[in-house]
């Protein structure tokens, strides 16, 4: 194992400062610091505060990851960093740190795509990815269906959200229901007590003439808001558990139906889920059920690895090193809207 390179990965695209260490497909350390508490204090995310929090957390998080792995900085063979997509100011902190380490250590630098890293992280748990695979990435900022012929070389976008991301719909519906931010976990919890068939919320872009792999969650969010407002106007109690369960069912239904269809249409029998929304219990259960029925092998990382972390960046970096992909240029920059097709920034 020691003959495989030790790759360190930096993740700072949003609220989490993550540093991971990976050798081959083996996860050695996954240190995380979050600025969520600071943002909660201000009632929302403040980009400048996110950047400053990354700056303060960066070096201590690197030290923690190295200590957890029982390694020193001199053991590192390559440096990987999320160079996009994400918040520009936040990305810049990770990119600057990675460049500094690469320069100081004289080791190659790999700017990597945040979305591809969400796919790569599964290799740390379930071994090499079957290729081609279909990947469904769902988080607060993204909802994408990808065809992955070769994670180190080629990722194709099949579809994406045309308005709101799935996680964003969770956040906004949580606010409508008076649940805390981020909305995913509290809706998941509330839904356990509710009836998913209580309210028939709309399934966006599922008509016969709609784009088969694109998503739309804006109409669903609005439908929930309208339903709740009508109840409130009538002076009735809002059945939070039923609304949460019915909303969650609509999201899980559309996501899994389209993912399974993408597998079938492309003759692919492996599906990978990734991103924070992949931690949702109903999405996981329904994906399990539908994949089993369709003869598709489903791979879902544990919830801890679904959300943003440094391990996923190191995992993709490790993949790129193993595939002999050339490192990034030393003047690597942050690209807030890096296209998914660009695996190495």
């Amino acid at each position, binding site marked *: 194992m020691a003959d495989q390179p030790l790759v360190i990965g930096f993740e700072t695209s949003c609220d989490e400062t993550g540093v991971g260490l990976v050798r081959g497909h083996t996860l050695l350390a996954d240190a995380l610091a979050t600025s969520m508490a600071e943002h909660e204090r201000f*009632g*929302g*995310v403040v980009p400048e505060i996110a950047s400053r929090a990354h700056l303060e957390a960066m070096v201590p998080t690197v030290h923690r990851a190295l200590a957890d792995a029982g390694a020193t900085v001199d053991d590192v063979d390559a440096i990987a960093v999320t160079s996009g997509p994400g918040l520009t100011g936040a990305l810049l902190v990770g990119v600057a740190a990675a460049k500094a380490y690469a320069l100081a250590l004289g080791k190659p630098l790999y700017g990597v795509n945040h979305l591809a890293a969400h796919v790569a992280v599964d290799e740390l748990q379930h071994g090499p990815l079957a290729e081609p695979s279909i990947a469904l990435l769902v988080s607060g900022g*993204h909802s994408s269906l990808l065809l992955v012929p070769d994670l180190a070389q080629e990722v194709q976008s099949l579809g994406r959200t045309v308005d*709101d991301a799935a996680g964003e719909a969770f956040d906004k519906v949580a606010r409508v229901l008076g649940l805390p931010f981020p909305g995913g976990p509290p809706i998941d919890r509330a839904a356990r007590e509710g009836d998913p068939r209580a309210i028939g919320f709309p399934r966006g872009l599922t008509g016969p003439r709609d784009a088969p792999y694109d998503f739309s969650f804006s109409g669903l969010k609005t439908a929930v*808001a309208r339903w709740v407002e009508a109840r409130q106007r009538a002076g009735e109690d809002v059945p939070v558990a039923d609304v949460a369960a019915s909303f969650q069912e609509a999201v899980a239904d559309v996501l899994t139906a389209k993912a399974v269809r993408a597998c079938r249409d492309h003759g692919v029998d492996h599906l990978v889920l990734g991103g924070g929304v992949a931690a949702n219990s109903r999405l996981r259960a329904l994906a399990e059920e539908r994949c089993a029925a369709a003869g598709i092998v489903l791979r879902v990382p544990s919830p801890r690895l679904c959300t943003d972390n440094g391990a996923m960046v190191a995992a993709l970096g490790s993949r790129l090193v193993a595939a002999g992909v050339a490192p990034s240029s030393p003047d690597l920059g942050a690209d807030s809207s890096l296209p998914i097709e660009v695996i190495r920034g």
Partner: protein
Amino acid sequence: MRREHVLPTPEDTHALGRALAELLAPGDLVVLVGPLGAGKTALTQGIGAGLGVREPVTSPTFVISRVHRGGRVPLVHVDAYRLGGVADVDDLDLDASTDESVTVVEWGEGLVERLTDEHLVVRLDRRDDDVRSAVLVPHGAGWERRLDAR
């Protein structure tokens, strides 16, 4: 241009956005006001289409702001929904591009007006029957004239 619009379908909201785009010039600030689901992103998609920007306009809630190029004028699409109450809009680093771009801000009322001398507010609303409405509210003599001229 009429100040009040009834928008029965999302296509109508999109069309209003395209019509607004014809009035827009570099340096303009448009503030969109309205509840969840009133059509703010749909209107911005129309503005983007009218300006001819390349990338699809989707909700920027998560990334706070997104720049769309490739059109007659760059479109800076900002969503202040996730911003904290005390956030200083300077922290968004928007000033850098507001002079050369059209800046459209969702959920930004009371936060961003001082970016420019004048601005246009579009008040969007959603009725119980799901029909949307829009009211254009000019702030500044220049915007008054521009709306009257069309």
